[in-house]
């Protein structure tokens, strides 16, 4: 069985327990943050085990690469502490179960992974993806199981991830372009954290997009719009890639005005918060987030994750912001798609 590679000494000697200190959903002073983290490290009870909302952000806040979020999940599962009600937890396990219903395109050395998210198949099309669109993979067999960390079901992650990786291995791919941050985060953060070998090179779709856009620079017409970016939870697993959003926006003429909840302080879309912590927190987070988007003068809300988009689209549209996925913005910039405007 795979086990989390976690080094006690790294936490014990940590000069600044940012993992908990910076948390936007739990309050700690520096001493308490350190103490609570050490309780987790030592397998003792901690209020973190019942209060953490599973936003993933501590994975980014920890500068020492010690995976506090995965540790919280491990400890919760060990102690039988559920984040969400049993029925919701099991529903997620069931609906992402492998049932032999996967779809695989003409895959050779590269696959274009759309996880288990149908919308990603549509997004991974057109000129930007013309070389790889036919190599699409879709289905639970190719779905990263990171979502189960929200439910502290690390055992499901450890059981399913090697199978997913093996399915890609059987395709004989050398590269997998991940259209979902969660997939890229799984292969580059979760897998190594649990000692699971990844026999292919994961490619982050924004790296792929940036390269394509640079190749097609002469076809880009700046969009000249102001947008607020909705950073997804899973981007916290790959904080080194966060800069790509701004680089792409710069390239296609989209201004990202400064706002309170950006970068490290981003707020989550709150769909999972709804299941884990109830509607009050979810409503409060969404309210603050969208107020902030409006106040910064954005006219568009740019999404990276289709789940965030599904959760927030209607809500941002009601506040006058047009919801759009970053890939669709890129398609608009090269004249392949019309930019929608919320009435």
């Amino acid at each position, binding site marked *: 069985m795979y086990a989390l590679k976690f080094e006690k000494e790294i936490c014990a000697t940590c000069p600044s327990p940012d993992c908990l200190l910076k948390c936007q959903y739990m309050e700690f002073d520096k001493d308490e943050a350190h103490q609570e983290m050490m309780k987790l490290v030592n397998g003792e009870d901690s209020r973190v085990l019942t209060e953490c909302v599973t936003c993933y952000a501590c994975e980014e806040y920890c500068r020492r690469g010690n995976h506090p979020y995965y540790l919280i999940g491990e400890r919760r599962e060990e102690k039988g502490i559920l984040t969400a009600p049993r029925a919701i937890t*099991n529903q997620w396990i069931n*609906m992402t179960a492998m049932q032999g219903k996967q779809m695989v395109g003409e895959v050779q050395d590269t696959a274009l992974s759309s996880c288990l998210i149908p919308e990603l198949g549509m997004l991974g099309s057109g000129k930007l993806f013309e070389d790889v669109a036919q190599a699409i993979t879709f289905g639970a067999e190719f779905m990263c199981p990171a979502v189960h960390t929200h439910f502290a079901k690390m055992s499901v992650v450890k059981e399913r991830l090697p199978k997913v990786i093996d399915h890609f291995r059987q395709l004989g791919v050398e590269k997998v372009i991940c259209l979902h941050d969660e997939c890229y985060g799984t292969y580059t953060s979760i897998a190594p954290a649990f000692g699971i070998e990844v026999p292919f090179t994961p490619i982050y779709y924004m790296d792929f997009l940036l390269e394509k856009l640079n190749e097609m620079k002469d076809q880009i017409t700046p969009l000249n719009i102001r947008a607020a970016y909705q950073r997804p939870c899973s981007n916290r697993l790959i904080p080194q890639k966060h800069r790509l959003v701004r680089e792409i926006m710069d390239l296609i003429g989209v201004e990202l005005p400064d706002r309170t909840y950006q970068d490290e302080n981003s707020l989550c879309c709150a*769909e999972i918060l709804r299941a884990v912590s109830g509607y009050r927190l979810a409503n409060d987070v969404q309210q603050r987030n969208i107020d902030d988007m409006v106040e910064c003068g954005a006219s568009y809300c740019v999404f990276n994750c289709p789940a965030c988009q*599904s959760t927030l689209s209607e809500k941002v549209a009601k506040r006058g912001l047009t919801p759009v996925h970053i890939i669709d913005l890129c398609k608009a910039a090269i004249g392949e798609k019309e930019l929608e405007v919320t009435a």
Partner: protein
Amino acid sequence: MKDILRSLVDILGERGVSNAAEELWFYARDPGVLEAHFPDYVVAPETTEQVRQVVRLANEEKIPIVPMGNGMALTGLVIPLKGGIVMDMKRMNRILEVNEKARYAVVEGGTSQGALKAYLQDHHPQLRHSLPDAPPTTTIAANVSLHGQGRLTQQYGFNSDMVTGLEVVLPTGEVCKIGSPSLGPYWFSKGPTLPDLSGLFLGWLGTTGIFTKVGLKLYPNKKIRDVEIFVTDRVDLVPDIIYKLTHLEMLEDINAWFQPRPLMFKDNYHITMYFTGDTEEEVEFKRKMIWDSLEEFIVAKDGGFMGVGYMKPMLLEMPQRGIAAFADVPRGGGFEYSGPITLIEHYPDYALKVMELAEKYEVIYSSAARVVSGGHSMMFSISFAFNRADAAMMERVKKALDEATEFALEKGGIPWKPNYKEQRMTLEKLDPNTLKLLQMVKRNLDPNGIMNPGNWEVS
């Protein structure tokens, strides 16, 4: 002996009568599992007077007559068990009146649910009726005659409770108005403060008369509808959850359902609740009240609200088409259900019975219970899908449904739109004096036993 065909043609014209084999084949069956019985004639009247003349002819000649809406009850209620005339009412499909301020509509006896829905949308957007989750071609008269339910049943009771008046052709040929239209031009009350004679017809499955006009209550059509689904893995908690929800007195509809497929629904019980409002503020207030009412279950991790985002368009559809998808799970597109009306506190027992029957008879199940009238009862559907090309599977479904009805009767439930076998089972269990009263009503209204014979055979 009269030439019946000639007499029918004289009443209805050539286009209103048929005894062609292909027509009789069609009218001999319904989409459920019961065996076909051929009628001798099919008629399609356009006026109350034509209905009256056909009924009078049938009564004189002692020919069975079966009134039919769209024939979608699934339990064989319009299969002509003893032959005779099937009267297809669908050509009597006019919406005669909508009284906006008094919130009622008067429709002809063959008017479909879809036609009234569309008419209200176009002409009275502030009003709606209690639309059942049946195909839009099903008729309003048939629905109330079998005590149907609809989208507003949780708030206002059975759709038959929403009747505001009737025009009925009695088995002896008289045209009789029931309720306020018997005294004047208005259709606002089926009974009160008169003796409520609608009970002589509602629930009788077309065995005491033919509805040629129905008055029906309409209700405010709020601008926004929304939906939440609460999920629990503890069937014993379902009645308590529903009790909490009905206490709110603010939900349009509550359905409790479970099914093994798709996999995401396996092992859980789902309570879908619909709520409405004219403003976002109203809707959000109701959402808050709903969440708060179930907080104890959430805190105990016994249940929670699932994300409904991508399912919302399907959930908010009226009527819903999910049933059609279920019917085709085993391929061959058939399904039938037993839907007893029972106490909500019996939900766990019924749920276990569904799963027991499905395993015993190797059939695919689903179940959806609709809360009636603020929680006084529920309709608990025990549904089985089957392949029409698989006779053995259909036989197993029949047996499973018979056993489900036996179970419901043992539990003190009332079978809903029972087929003729279930009706017999019900009558056998009925209090003898109640049975006697039913016999008195039936004999007096239908002395020759011509109306939909084989159904509610109380004699």
